[in-house]
């Protein structure tokens, strides 16, 4: 893994649980096309990624939210590389619940649900989210959750994990709090996970996280095409951890959460 980074060679079989796509001009300063994503996946050795569509996050009407989930077409065109999240827009709760049904109806494309609390300015225990958590719990679904005001939401997250033990709750960006704050929750709740993507990454932050809570509930996420993929891959590959821990973070843990049909 280490040599691959310094040689600029692809890693092997990386599974990315946090991606985004959106049409963008070919000469965009910030490209976000599925083709750009796959090109960078190839360079970094990411074999599979689960994406949510920017349009779903930005939807303002039920119609827009429905159209965003035509990402199924993109997923089908790259079925060997992509799966998708249903985007849950809490200000469109009924349409969001209808879209969530796609995870049950089209599991070959949609494999979980994505929540973005800061963008939607929605509390972790808001009624629309609680309704979604009950649905995810009933069907034992993964939910990728970027939590708003995470430092004030840890108690709420504990209750959510406790009330929904079959739901697999993945907190984006290391949970958005220092590792000392999230580690006790990870140790207490086996259905709680964190992903690794972040625009900034403290010196030895991942090593401290593993030291406090083990590597078993940490999933690799890049946040590409929001963030770049190379930096996110390198911080796992170069971490001062055992090969086994790095391999678990890169793919084995995701296999447990999403199942062998999703992970190559």
């Amino acid at each position, binding site marked *: 893994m280490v040599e691959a980074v310094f040689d600029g060679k692809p890693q092997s079989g990386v599974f990315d649980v946090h991606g985004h796509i959106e049409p963008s001009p070919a000469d965009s*300063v910030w490209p976000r096309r599925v083709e*750009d994503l796959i090109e960078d996946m190839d360079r970094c050795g990411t074999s599979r990624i689960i994406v949510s569509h920017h349009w779903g996050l930005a939807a303002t009407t039920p119609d827009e939210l429905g159209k965003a989930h035509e990402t199924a077409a993109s997923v089908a065109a790259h079925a060997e590389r992509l799966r998708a999240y249903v985007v849950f827009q809490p200000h469109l709760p009924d349409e969001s619940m209808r879209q969530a049904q796609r995870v049950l109806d089209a599991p070959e494309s949609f494999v979980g649900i994505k929540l973005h609390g800061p963008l939607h300015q929605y509390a972790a225990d808001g009624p629309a989210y609680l309704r979604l958590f009950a649905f995810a719990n009933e069907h034992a679904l993964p939910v990728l959750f970027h939590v708003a005001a995470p430092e004030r939401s840890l108690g709420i997250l504990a209750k959510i994990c406790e009330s929904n033990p079959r739901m697999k709750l993945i907190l984006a960006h290391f949970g958005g709090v220092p590792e000392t704050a999230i580690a006790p929750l990870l140790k207490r709740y086996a259905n709680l996970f964190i992903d690794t993507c972040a625009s900034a990454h403290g*010196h*030895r932050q991942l090593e401290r996280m593993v030291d406090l809570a083990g590597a078993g509930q940490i999933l690799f996420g890049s946040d590409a095409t*929001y*963030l*770049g*993929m190379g930096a996110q891959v390198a911080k796992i590959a*170069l971490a001062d951890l055992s090969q086994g821990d790095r391999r678990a973070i890169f793919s084995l843990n995701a296999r447990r959460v999403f199942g062998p049909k999703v992970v190559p």
Partner: protein
Amino acid sequence: MRFFDCGAMAGRHPVPRAGRVASPEELLREMDRFRIEQSLFSAYRFEAEATEAMNRATFAAARNSSRLVPCGVMTGAPSRIGRTLAQEANDLIASGARAIRMVPSEGPSASPLTLRRFALDPLLDRIQRSATPLLIDAAEFHTAQGAATSAFEQIAAMAAGFPRLPIVLLQPKYNAQADLIAVLRRYRNVYCTIPLLGLFREMESLAAIAGADRLLFGAYLPNSDPALPIGMITYSKLPVREREMIAGGNLRRLLGVDRGAR
């Protein structure tokens, strides 16, 4: 890829920091782990007359390892009565400093770093004469406090007034992209390090807009993990030549050093 880190610091702070790099020896160990050949380095101290102590420790560390290239530090105020900033810069350069880094005073009531030209012009004139790069931490440029005294407005004024002075912005954040692109486009003597430019292909886009010769590898130790900018470079879609420039070639050129380290 020969990595030359622009702007590492090492030292202790009264508030224990996670992931600290407390000494030059610890920094060298991290450089080994991340295969960083050399570092443009400043020691860190938290005390009165901190910059004098930092500079003494920096030169001492550089004498012990040629992998640590000394970068002198200054605040926006002279540290001794009767001395000027230009004189202090002169002493640092005469002592072997290859670059000068502006650092803020610290403490609960410390004022923010000022980069106003009425305060700095004699200093800028002195270091322009020797083309000594000036390093400025841009991580907080986007904050309200930073914007008032030490932000892109001041950088633009300095770059316009001293066009032969290399100005290196350390770790500008990805969300400062609008100002960063504008200042890089307009002033050829402005450069920046990349560790917090983490948007999808942000480094590649900046290279296309401003030139790969304007971008520098910076590990941002001890605050950040060097793996991020290393991965940005090695996994970039830029040609190998441009990746090598960003990894270390550009900084070697700015400092006028190009040799293997001991």
